[in-house]
C-alpha cells in the first residue's frame, strides 16, 4: 500500500512505454508500398472452425495466381496474393481489411469464406467504393444493398429460395404427389436461412409441415430427433445441416430406418470426400444440393485442368482430396476479377464494377453472369442424388454417375431414384 515514489514513476514509465509499443507494433508488419505486382488482398479462415474450407480456397486461389502469371499476368504485371488468417472469427475481419487497404495498399480485394466473414468487411468496401468479390456468402447484400458486391456461389438471385428450389421442384414430380414435409436444421446461420426458403416453397406447394425444429450444433446423438421426425410420418424430409450433424442425422436415419419419399436437401458436408469415404453406401438415395460434380453435363473448359493441379497438391496441404465443392469457385471468383481487369485494362473500381455488372464471364465453373444484387443472375444450385455407391473407396466418387444431377433442367444427367425408403 505504501509504494515509494521512484517505483511509481517507474510503473508509469512502463505503462507509457507499453502504449508507445502498442502503437509502434501495430504499424509494424509485412507492409509494402504499391509496387510492381498487382496485389489481391483478402482475409481467409486458415485456423478455426472454417479452416478446412478456407485452406482449400486459398490453394485454389494460389493456383489461379500461378496460372495468371504463367500467362503473362494482368496488365502486363504479375499478380500477388496478400492474405491474413481471420481465424474464422468475424472480429478480426475489419482490422484485416483496413490493414490490407491502408497499409499494404492492395489493388483488389476479395472476401474470405462464408457469410460471417464477408459481412464485417462490407462497410469498409462501401465507404471506399471498392469492388468486392464474395466467396460463399448467403444473402449478404440483402442488408447492405451495395452495388459493387459480387458473390460467386451459384445460389441465384434469390438465394434463400433458390437454395432449395431443386428439392421442391423435384418433389412436385413424384407420383403420388407428396403431402407432408418435415424440416430440421442446425441453429446456425446457413441452415436457418435454408429453412426459411424451404418453408416458403412448402407453402407455395401446399405441403403440410408436420415437423419444423432446429437443434444445437453440439448435439451428440441425433436418434431422438430422427425418431421424432419419423413419428410424424412425413413424405419429404428436408435437412439443413453442417458436416458433423449431417453425418449424425444420416447415421441415425439408417439405424432407425427413417421412411421418406425424398430425404436430404441442404446437408453441408456430404460434398466432401473425407465424409463420403466414411459413409459409403449409406449415402445411396440421399438427394442433396451441390455446386459441381464430375458429370458429363458439367464438363466446363478448364475445370479438369484446374482439378488436376489442385488434386496434385491437396494431399500435402491436408485439404479435401477431390476438391469439387468449393475450390473451383474460389478459383473462379478471382478469375472473374482478373478477366474484368484485363478487359477494361483498368484497376479503377468504378470501371471494374460496371464491367462485371454488364458482362458474362467464362470461368472454370462455366459461364457466370451477375444480377443486380451481385448474385448469379440465374441459380445453379444443383440437386444431386447419390446412386450406386458400393463401398468406401475414394475412386468411385470421381466417376460420373455416383452423383447424378436432377436439377436444374439444363444440367440434368440422370433420373431420381425414389422413394428413399418405405
Amino acid at each position, binding site marked *: 500500500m505504501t509504494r515509494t515514489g521512484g517505483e511509481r514513476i517507474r510503473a508509469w514509465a512502463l505503462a507509457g512505454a507499453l502504449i508507445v509499443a502498442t502503437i509502434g507494433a501495430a504499424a509494424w508488419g509485412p507492409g509494402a508500398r504499391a509496387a510492381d505486382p498487382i496485389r489481391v488482398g483478402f482475409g481467409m479462415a486458415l*485456423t*478455426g*472452425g*472454417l*479452416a*478446412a474450407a478456407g*485452406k482449400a480456397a486459398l490453394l485454389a486461389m494460389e493456383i489461379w495466381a500461378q496460372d495468371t502469371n504463367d500467362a503473362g499476368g494482368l496488365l502486363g504485371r504479375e499478380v500477388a496474393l496478400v492474405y491474413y488468417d481471420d481465424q474464422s472469427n468475424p472480429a478480426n475481419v475489419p482490422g484485416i481489411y483496413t490493414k490490407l487497404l491502408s497499409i499494404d495498399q492492395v489493388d483488389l480485394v476479395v472476401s474470405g469464406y462464408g457469410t460471417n466473414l464477408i459481412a464485417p468487411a462490407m462497410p469498409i468496401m462501401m465507404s471506399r467504393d471498392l469492388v468486392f468479390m464474395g466467396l460463399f456468402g448467403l444473402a449478404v447484400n440483402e442488408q447492405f444493398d451495395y452495388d459493387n458486391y459480387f458473390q460467386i456461389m451459384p445460389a441465384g438471385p434469390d438465394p434463400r429460395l433458390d437454395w432449395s428450389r431443386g428439392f421442391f421442384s423435384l418433389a412436385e414430380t413424384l407420383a403420388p404427389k407428396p403431402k407432408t414435409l418435415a424440416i430440421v436444421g442446425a*441453429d446456425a446461420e446457413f441452415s436457418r436461412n435454408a429453412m426459411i426458403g424451404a418453408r416458403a416453397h412448402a407453402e407455395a406447394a401446399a405441403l403440410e409441415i408436420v415437423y419444423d*425444429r*432446429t*437443434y*444445437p450444433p*453440439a*448435439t*451428440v*446423438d441425433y*436418434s*431422438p*430427433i430422427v*425418431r*421424432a421426425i419419423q*413419428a*410424424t410420418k412425413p413424405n419429404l424430409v428436408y435437412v439443413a445441416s453442417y*458436416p*458433423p450433424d449431417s*453425418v*449424425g442425422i444420416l*447415421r*441415425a436415419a*439408417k*439405424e*432407425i*430406418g427413417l421412411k421418406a419419399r425424398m430425404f436430404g436437401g441442404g446437408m453441408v*458436408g456430404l460434398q466432401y470426400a*473425407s*465424409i463420403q469415404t*466414411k459413409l459409403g453406401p*449409406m449415402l445411396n438415395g440421399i438427394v442433396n444440393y451441390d455446386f459441381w460434380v464430375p458429370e458429363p453435363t458439367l464438363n466446363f473448359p478448364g475445370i479438369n485442368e484446374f482439378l488436376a493441379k489442385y488434386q496434385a497438391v491437396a494431399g500435402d496441404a*491436408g485439404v479435401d482430396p477431390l476438391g469439387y465443392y468449393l475450390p473451383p469457385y474460389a478459383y473462379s471468383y478471382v478469375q472473374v476479377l482478373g478477366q474484368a481487369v484485363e478487359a477494361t485494362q483498368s484497376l479503377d473500381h468504378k470501371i471494374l464494377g460496371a464491367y462485371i455488372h454488364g458482362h458474362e464471364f467464362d470461368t472454370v465453373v462455366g459461364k457466370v453472369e451477375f444480377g443486380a444484387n451481385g448474385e448469379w443472375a440465374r441459380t445453379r444450385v444443383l440437386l444431386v442424388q447419390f446412386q450406386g455407391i458400393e463401398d*468406401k473407396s475414394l475412386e468411385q466418387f470421381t466417376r460420373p454417375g455416383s452423383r447424378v444431377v436432377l436439377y436444374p433442367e439444363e444440367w440434368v444427367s440422370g433420373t431420381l431414384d425414389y422413394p428413399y425408403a418405405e
Partner: protein
Amino acid sequence: MFTFDLLANAIVAGVLLGGFYTAVSLGLTIAFGRLDVVNIAHPAFVILGSYTAYMVNAAFGVDPVLAGLAFTPAFFAIGVGIYRVYHASFERRGDESLRGLAFFFGLMFIVEVALILVYGVDYRLVDAPYIGATVSFGFVGVPMRMLVPFALALIMTIALQQYFVRTFMGRAIMAVSQDRLALQLMGADPTRVKQLAFGIALATASLAGAMLIVIGPVEPSMGRLYIGRVFAIVVLGGMGSVGGTLIAALLLGVIESLTATFYGPSWAPAVAFGFLLFALAVRPQGLFGR
C-alpha cells in the same frame, strides 16, 4: 405427436447417451470430487483420446475401443506428470483456486491447438463393424453405435467402483481429501495417492474419447461443449461418488433426449444447464450428496 413408442425410444436413447456421459465424467468425478483438483481440461483430454483412437484406427484398422484401451497407460502417465506439475506449482503453495484453475484452462487450450496443428480442424470419423447396425427389442431400436459405448461405460463404472471399495489404494483415494486422519492411519502418502488417482482419472479420458468418436465425428475444439455438461454431472452426482455420477449422467441423458424428442432439440443444452444452475442454487451437495 406424443406416443408411447416415441417415449420409450426417447428414454432408451437418453439412457444410452447417459452411459456415454458417465464415461466422460468419471475422470472428473475422481479429480474434482475426490482430489479437489478442478481439471477443466478433462474434456480436452477426452478429445485427445478420440484422436489417438482415430490415429490407430486409420493407420492399422484397429477397433477404436481397443485402441482407446491400449492408450490408457499413456494417458495415465500424462496424468501423473500433470499432477506433479500441479502439485509442485499450485497445491503446495495453496494457490489452486485461482492460478490452478487458470493452469488447467491454459492446458485445455494447448491440447486443443496442438490437435489442430497436427490434424487440422476437419471432422474425423472411424470405422468399426458395429457402426450403423441396430438391434431391436420390440418397437425399441437400439443403435450399436450407442450401445457399445454404453456397455463399456457400465463396465468402467463397475470396475472403478469395485477398485475404490475393495483395494487398499482405492480406499486411500476415496479418503484422500475427506479424511486425512484415516489416510495417515493407513500409512499412505497423500501426494502419491493423489498422483495415482489423477493418473487413473486421465486414463478414463482415453476410453471415453474412443467412445466419443464411435458415436460421431470429432473435431479438436469439441471438448468445450462438454465442460459444462461434465461438471453438471459431477456436481449433481454428489462430488466424487461413482454411483452418483452414473445416475446423474443417465438423468441428464434422459432429460436431453426427452427435450429433443418432445419439446425441441434447440433447448436441450439450456435445459441441462439450467438444471445445473438450479441445483447449485438449491442443493449444492448434489442430488445424491452426502
